[in-house]
């Protein structure tokens, strides 16, 4: 029978946490989640998290912005309402293009930056009125928390975690 029991092991130092993660991984236990007050370098690799693809998204969003800028300048300045402004050519987009470079650049950045951040917020479930999910309020201050699911191996896990210099070990029922 599977229960929702989890063990929370709390640490007060990032290096101790890293060693603990190594120990738990070596003992072939699954680490459900780690909550830290600041980015701990190398933790994602140690946990085996796949690399984030947000940068690729940003590149695609940037291309989208660039295409939008090209379409917009062409539609407004060349097709829909061509005007002779300061003698700048209005009959062909490519000839008028140098004047549009700033707009193309700005919209590329605008789309890439904003859509990437929105994607990040959606993927990490961050938005106004969203309830925080860190199990202990100290994890945003100076406590590092490792969450390990329990499958009838509570004692074994507790014993293992006791060797990792945890400052607190709690077994709790997760809802």
């Amino acid at each position, binding site marked *: 029978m599977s229960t929702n029991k989890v063990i929370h092991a709390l640490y007060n130092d990032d290096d101790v946490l890293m060693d603990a993660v190594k120990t738990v991984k070596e003992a072939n236990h699954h680490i459900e989640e780690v909550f830290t007050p600041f980015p701990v370098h190398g933790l994602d690799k140690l946990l085996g998290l796949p690399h984030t693809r947000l*940068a690729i998204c940003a590149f695609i969003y940037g291309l989208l912005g660039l295409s939008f800028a090209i379409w917009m300048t062409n539609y407004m300045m060349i097709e829909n309402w061509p005007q002779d402004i300061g003698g700048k050519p209005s009959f062909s987009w490519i000839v008028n293009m140098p004047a549009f470079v*700033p707009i193309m650049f700005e919209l590329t950045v605008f789309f890439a930056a904003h859509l990437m951040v929105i994607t990040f917020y959606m993927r990490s479930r961050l938005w106004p009125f969203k309830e925080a999910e860190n199990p202990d309020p100290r994890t945003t201050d100076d406590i590092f928390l490792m969450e390990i699911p329990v499958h009838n191996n509570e004692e074994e896990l507790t014993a293992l975690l006791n060797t990792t210099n945890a400052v607190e070990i709690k077994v709790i029922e997760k809802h």
Partner: protein
Amino acid sequence: MSSHYEAPIREPLVLGEKSYHDITMDIVKPIEGKANKNWYIAFTIALIAFLWGVGCILYTIGTGIGVWGLNKNIGWAWDITNFVWWVGIGHAGTLISAVLLLFRQKWRMAINRSAEAMTIFAVFQAGLFPLIHMGRPWNGYWVLPIPNQFGSLWVNFNSPLLWDVFAISTYLSVSLVFWWTGLLPDFAMIRDRAVKPFQKKIYALLSFGWSGRAKDWQRFEEVSLVLAGLATPLVLSVHTIVSMDFATSINPGWHSTIFPPYFVAGAIFSGFAMVQTLLGIMRKVSNLESYITRLHVEYMNIVIMVTGGIVAVAYASEFFIAWYTGSPYENYTYMSIGAATGPYGWAFWSLILFNIAIPQFLWIEKVRRSFIWSFIISIAINIGMWFERFDIIAIVLSKGHLPSTWTRFEPTFVDVGVFVGTIGFFFVLFLLYARTFPVIAQAEVKTIMKSSGQHYKQLRDGKNEH
């Protein structure tokens, strides 16, 4: 651990024996504590200046631009000077957080939050000026390329003024999300500590439910890096485009290919000076002496020296080229013998004194590492950079091609009032920020504690000796 190693020769960036929790306590102190008398005095003065500015803006809009000191030849003067000045100040924030992030400069972490706040508040002020200058600000949305009932009359994408609209709105909005994303973990820290229910609710709302999972941090760092990569050319593009407002005109004195790099360097120069001014006050008022150290001040001063040097070289080449053309007209542009000896000589020499002469004192190490001298020099640069824009605009326009059009610009009390008002508005926002926001990126500072904290460095050095 060896991964935290940093050469002992490097000075520590965080002073004192700080634990992670001590950093938290230092950052939340101004937020959880009560404001002191000085804060209220400063806030009241700023608020009065702001309200005075609001009055002057309403008077301008109600009566018309004629209440400014403009005339037939000088069609814009103080307003565009103030606009460029504020945009320039708004440059250091994103430069610090983006460019210094790409170069992995750890010292940025103590100052990036406040510098970005300064950026955003300064760009607010900058944006006011074109809006007021429109005369009918309720039609301000006409600058956007939206379908309309004027026979589908679109905005003019050939115009540098429209490029400005795109550049500044992109810059403002991207700076804002960059700032806010960095704020999420710090808001979460305040949220998790808050005991008053109202405060907890507010910070829970502001923190977007940040929980600090390993995956969140991985994405957070990636987003910060990519945003820095996007913001770096963006910073350079904004002032480049602002300079094109002048450089693409056919007015001698403005029609100059040197303008974009010269304006960008000037913007960074004035932006860092403003950061120096604000943080000089803030480190005292908010007790941040352990985080904003002499080393930070020195590094900022070095950036000021480099960009100030670029600006000085630009002035010299403008002066030389104006003379070298042999054109009598060029002898009346803002960098010429005519300007130095003419009716605006006082403005010309103010520029030389504040922007070139006074910053040279930074070559002396004692001055560069002194809080009080850095503060005084930063104020001088703020004034000097205002004169640079005033000189470029007013001196050039005051001498038309026909001597009969030669005129002078005299600001009215409304010109001055609107400018004073934006300074007041800026400080109202900044003072409110200093009381309610985490003014140092504490999550980031915690990551460098073991490598650059004084305590840890001493522990490591002690170990090496034995």
